[in-house]
């Protein structure tokens, strides 16, 4: 319990984008250790996220899981034409989750989940080569999901629930490459919106073909977070009536895309094998638009034009002893970013991800779940071609190399 207290004491600070775009696949340490598979796996209340229907088949009446991950992400950028090079100095992200489920009776299970499926924290050094695109971004969405699961019979169950999402974003960049104040500091804009909320939903089913072969489907709806009362602050603006920039309210919207997950798992002796497929409907993310309430300030339109993308996951689990369970996994994460739309705020190309972890049983009721994720991105030459100055497209090109190290720890309680 001490650890649970420790976790909840940590502020819900921003998480970093793992997964294409700003998706953060860190919703359960047992699942994470198995390549973040879990749609067809039933072993803890992590199913609140992965497949609510699976809660019906948990052995215990009360299940609680909580966890935190430390996201260490690094972006290196260079441009061989100019020799410009930079390493991001993003702070550690700490995505969290907390799930609970309770079997009310033989056919009804209720649950609650709080998790952070979307987020991104990227910070570049001041006035770096791409500062007209982004200096820093910190965005996060917290999902709160009351859940029910109905066991139709031993073979099939359904589940789901509403999702209340709360989002916040802070985004800072230079206005362009030319405007600066008297001291030569580039003029910047900082957009801030918090407490932005909206509703969505999740629905799922679980089918047990045999005692050992399970199949699951989960669909999580899109949630569009629209800030109506955000603010824009301008810094280092020259003292001149020739610039329209003055602090203003803003409107901006950011979609949390829908996700369809299919999973299969198979138990064999002390082994479990799991395969998940995720389809993320990123094509809703067309453009990052910021509308300024002040009509003198031109709206900021930043084409994104994401495409739908898939993730292929595989995981294995081995119940070694009564005390130890070992897990490992791998997933391939397709980027939703099209060529030419590679913006440095989420410089994600396809990634290969390797996971491992274990659970340690402490007494009858507690398990400590540890996991580690290493995300490997290939070096990529890419550009963002949709930044404009005076009507001219000014591509921002370079070579990106990204990686991520995520140690994660969690606690499971069963009664």
């Amino acid at each position, binding site marked *: 319990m001490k650890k649970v207290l420790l976790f909840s004491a940590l502020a819900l600070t921003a998480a970093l984008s793992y997964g294409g775009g700003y998706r953060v696949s860190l919703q359960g340490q047992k699942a994470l250790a198995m390549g973040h598979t879990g749609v067809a796996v039933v072993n803890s209340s992590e199913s609140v996220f992965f497949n609510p229907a699976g809660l019906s088949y948990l052995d215990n009446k009360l299940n609680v899981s909580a966890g935190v991950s430390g996201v260490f992400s690094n972006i290196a950028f260079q441009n061989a034409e100019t020799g410009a*090079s930079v390493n991001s100095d993003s702070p550690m992200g700490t995505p969290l989750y907390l799930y609970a489920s309770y079997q009310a009776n033989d056919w009804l299970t209720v649950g609650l989940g709080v998790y952070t499926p979307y987020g991104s924290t990227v910070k570049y050094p001041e006035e770096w*080569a791409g500062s007209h695109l982004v200096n820093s971004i910190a965005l996060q969405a917290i999902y709160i999901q009351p859940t029910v699961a109905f066991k139709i019979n031993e073979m099939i169950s359904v589940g789901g629930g509403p999702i209340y999402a709360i989002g916040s974003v802070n985004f800072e960049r230079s206005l362009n*490459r030319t405007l600066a104040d*008297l001291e030569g500091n580039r003029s910047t804009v900082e957009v801030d919106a918090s407490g932005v909320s909206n509703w969505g939903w999740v629905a799922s089913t679980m089918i047990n073909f045999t005692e050992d072969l399970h199949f699951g489907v989960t669909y999580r709806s899109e949630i569009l977070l629209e800030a109506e009362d955000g603010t824009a602050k301008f810094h280092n603006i020259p003292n001149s009536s020739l*610039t329209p920039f003055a602090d203003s309210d803003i409107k901006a919207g950011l979609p949390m895309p829908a996700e369809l997950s299919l999973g299969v798992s198979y138990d064999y002796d002390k082994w479990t094998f799991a395969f998940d497929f995720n389809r993320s409907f990123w094509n809703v993310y067309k453009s990052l638009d910021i509308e300024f309430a002040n009509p003198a300030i031109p709206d900021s339109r930043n084409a994104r034009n994401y495409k739908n993308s898939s993730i292929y996951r595989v995981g294995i689990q081995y119940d070694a002893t009564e005390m130890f369970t070992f897990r490992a996994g791998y997933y391939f994460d397709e980027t939703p970013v099209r060529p030419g739309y590679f913006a440095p705020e989420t410089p994600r190309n396809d990634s290969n991800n390797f996971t491992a972890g274990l659970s340690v049983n402490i007494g009858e009721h507690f398990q400590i779940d540890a996991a580690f994720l*290493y995300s490997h991105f290939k070096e990529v030459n890419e550009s963002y071609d949709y930044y404009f100055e005076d009507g001219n497209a000014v591509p921002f090109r370079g070579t990106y190399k990204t990686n991520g190290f995520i140690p994660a720890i969690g606690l499971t309680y069963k009664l």
Partner: protein
Amino acid sequence: MKNIFKYTCAILAVGLVSCEPEFENSVNDPGFYSSGNADFSRYVAVGNSLTAGYSDGALFITGQKYSYPNLMAEKFAFVGGGEFTQPLMNDNMGGMLLGGTQILENRLILEVGANGNPGPVRLQGTPSTDAAQKLSGTFQNMGVPGAKSFHLVAPGYGNPAGIAAGMANPYFARFASSDNATVIGDASAQQPTFFSLWIGNNDILSYATSGGVGVDQTGNMNPSSYGSNDITDPNVFAAVYSQQVDALVGSGAKGVLFNLPEVTSVPYFTTVPTKVIPLDAGTAAQLNAQFAVYNNQILPALAAASVITQQEAALRKINFEAGQNFPIMTDDDLTNLTQMLMGPPFNLPQQTAGLLGQLRQVNSDDLIVLPASSILGSTPDPGNPMGIVGVTIPLADKWVLSRKEQDRVRIATASYNATIRAIAGAKGLAFVDVNQAMTRVATDGLPYDGGVLTAQFVTGGTFSLDGVHPTPRGYAFITNLAIDAINHTYEATIPRVNVGDYPTITLHNN
């Protein structure tokens, strides 16, 4: 399955020891870029205001940061370049004091005036840079604003005691190694392995910007007898230039030489149109009536008497019409008729004779200098609303660079450039044809990733608010010209700058 587990763990372990992502070929790896057959470990830049990073009519810290030698040195750092320090000013005001009294004006900013129109004005405030305060250490940027070619070899050019009398340069005084030091001596004492030299602009520029009030000293081999606005004799230039290159090459340094742009294509000379006086038909007729005797009697009579040529008589005719008109001006290249007009048969009063003495109308071959825009059409005597500059009061000679004066500048420039090119060729030094590039800026413009750099005042992106010196973006463009020339000559692969990343002019309201 066990193998997969092992494999995964091994990858994790490797990942853990190398946390920062590393490129297969990092731009920061030695050998990514090549210095070719040059050695950039000690780079020294020699020149004038352009080398110092002068912009917006002053020298100040941010401008110096974007000086082309500093931008070059940043790129030389990829190929073994060493430390490059500049004699930074104290602030971003740009002006300079001498013993507490301001002797140089602050930088220009683009201010929106009371009438709502933006225009360049001086930044208000007291600068903190004092020419009497000596900087310690040596500096690799030896650009001295205001220096002419022969100044670089003149002992005492950095003697603080000589500033007040105009015998020494306040910029050089801040970092000259001694009262008797020369710029070139201090530069070569650093034993550069690589140098840049861009000098000679002021040998013609001050003549041009002063509207040709100086003297073309071609034929006079003694520069100590020159006035500040004179054109330097091309042989004097050739001699001192060659001496400087020899001193900088020393025992084998490599380097880059810049030639001189045609100064007459910069906004200082092209912004104010020659047909600048708007008149309605009635006023034009009224004015023409006043000049009728001059046009129709005096000029033909003087031409008939061969006092002036037919050509000059035609040039001197004054004619206004409805619409935009050329202003009237005093041209010191015309025959001075004042005394003659006071005598018989004209017997004009002294004031009228003085007015007509060297009078003509500006024509399309002339260039009106930028500062004239503030006096054209003004009425300097509030008691006389009819005394309008350019209409009834001639523009002084200094406001107009006539065709004749332009020709003197052009001839001198061509001669200096021939010297520079020949020496670059003879010594195997890299050569930057700034003249050709600036001609392109003034004609077609030069494309960069955010648009096109042109010679348009304020909006063109190339020239700062003084209409002569480049903006940081303009200097970045020059940096690339130099890097290209160096890469070509010395088979190096030094990276270029991205021109669009550099700022242009500064907006500010005092």
